[in-house]
């Protein structure tokens, strides 16, 4: 068995609106259209990934929130319906997915050895959160690869962003180590928006795009700053400013997803490919791919 490898890392935001607007058979509500700049960004991502061989998607989700450390999906098969508690009118998705439990256990062990609090999730009645499902669906709508599902730890709220980032540095490193030992080729998904202040009302027709725009200019400026750093391969600088970004743009990076991924990729210095940027109910979202071969 050869050495495993992280072949790509993706910033893969999870607004359920994007799945809703694509009308896949798994989702009950049907849309006319909507949020095309982000859906086309995901199309470009999928085209890019179609040239890449990989075995597993590892997804770190802000919407599986745990406060006692990091948890990992530990049941081989899940089949149920995921109803978004916040946007149930848009997302009621029938999922049927496989988990690479072996790889999940390896990452869990490696993280624990590095001093992190970890736990495998073995309850077969557990429902998969919509963050995990939306990011995986938009990246790989065929669902023909198993996933590893990782919870986001609430340390940013319990302590602060610096504490959370210190933990995510370790989790990223443990992920890389476990992947290398597994011999598998994996793609990482950081399932989060950038700026994240929502509107709290929604138009009668949710996909009426005449209502869609960034919540406030401050968020937009911050998003552009972060995307610029990504395009210039300045990962270390991203994590350096992430505490300020998260606070000032109410960003969903408080989940630790992005920090985990950049650490697992060993803080890339090559430019990331930005497939697109768009807003969803006022939040800022970018689909971005880190892949060394792009250099």
């Amino acid at each position, binding site marked *: 068995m050869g050495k495993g490898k992280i072949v790509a890392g993706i910033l893969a935001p999870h607004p359920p609106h994007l799945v809703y607007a694509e009308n896949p058979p798994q989702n009950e509500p049907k849309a006319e259209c909507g949020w095309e700049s982000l859906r086309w960004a995901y199309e470009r991502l999928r085209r890019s990934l179609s040239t890449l061989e990989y075995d597993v998607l590892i997804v770190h989700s802000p919407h599986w929130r745990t406060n*006692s450390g990091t948890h990992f999906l530990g049941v081989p098969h899940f089949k149920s319906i995921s*109803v978004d508690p916040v946007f149930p009118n848009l997302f009621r998705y029938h999922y049927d997915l496989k988990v690479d439990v072996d790889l999940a256990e390896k990452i869990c062990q490696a993280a624990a050895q590095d001093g992190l*609090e970890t*736990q495998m999730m073995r309850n077969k009645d557990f429902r998969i959160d919509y963050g995990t499902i939306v990011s995986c669906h938009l990246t790989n709508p065929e669902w023909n690869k198993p996933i590893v599902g990782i919870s986001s730890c609430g340390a940013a709220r319990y302590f602060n962003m610096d504490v959370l980032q210190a933990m995510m540095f370790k989790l990223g490193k443990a992920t890389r180590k476990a992947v290398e030992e597994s011999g598998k080729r994996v793609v990482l998904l950081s399932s989060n928006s950038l700026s994240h202040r929502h*509107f709290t009302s929604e138009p009668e027709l949710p996909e009426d795009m005449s209502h869609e*725009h960034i*919540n406030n200019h401050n968020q937009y400026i911050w998003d552009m700053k972060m995307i610029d750093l990504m395009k210039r391969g300045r990962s270390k600088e991203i994590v350096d400013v992430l505490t300020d970004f998260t606070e000032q743009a109410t960003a969903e990076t408080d989940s630790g997803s992005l920090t985990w991924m950049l650490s697992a990729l060993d803080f890339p210095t090559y430019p990331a490919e930005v497939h697109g940027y768009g807003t969803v109910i006022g939040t800022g979202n970018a689909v971005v791919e880190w892949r060394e071969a792009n250099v």
Partner: protein
Amino acid sequence: MNNVVKGYVLPGLPHLVLTPDANPGWKKVRQAMDRVRDEITALDADVLMIYSTYWPSVIGHQIQARPTPEWVHVDDEFHALGSVPYKLKVDSELAHAYVEAAKARKLQARAIDYHGFPIDTGSVVVSKLINPQNKLPCVIVSSNVYADRAETLVLGKAARDALEKQGKKAVAVIVSSLSNRIHTQKTEPKDDHIHSLKDQEWNLKFLEFLKEGRLEDVSQLSRQFHKEARVNKVANFKPFWWLAALMGQNNLYAGNVMEYQPIYGSGAAVISLTPSDKAARDLEFDESDPDSYSGERNVLGGTGEPALTQEALHE
């Protein structure tokens, strides 16, 4: 007419359903919940009106209206404790009336009626324990992550409007811990304790007030409590605003702290508030008392479309 016959403050962690015997304190809280069940059976009430801090919303206020939601619930954090099958009975008519009453007071609100909607851990746990046979139907309202005091008071008043309109009497329930900081490292049940001394002190302060029936005082102190004893996951500590607004915004209650114990580090209290003629204290309150929600003040700026923006700072 007072449409709320009794108010309760109840904890919502799944330990109370799945493993109450693992710790003597958890067992005591469970026994107190069982007493609440018996008390409610003896009350002349038509409905349980529940505000759950375990159900966050973003698009205004969501109100559960599906007549018989049914599922097997697993908690995101405490999945290892097991699964909780549930089947609830919801007063759908009252839920819709609540939505209309909220809209009449200029709040964003909507009814939720979807197969498979994930009822939150707190609502499931409380319903299982205090209303196991669904003797009373319930209405459950979410806790908007951005909402602050004005909005939540108006939400409580709208609940009162709906009850009055339908001529129904309610038991009002807030599902919330006091201090909400749980252990971040694996802790055996026998070693459970309130996470920090500061949390413990603030919990005791709130219990002292509630024992005297000083609900409005507690409501007025909520901002302070949020700063001192809550992990800041949402804009503010809101449940007592909702409860006070629904129950009349005064201190005219007989308070009973039925139990208080740590559950996995958090402060779990079982408290009842019974309307009474005698005020515990009659203080002069300095917070404003809005009757309808006038929206956010566009503090983040730029859009000039107040209908699409709102107040409060972060989740």
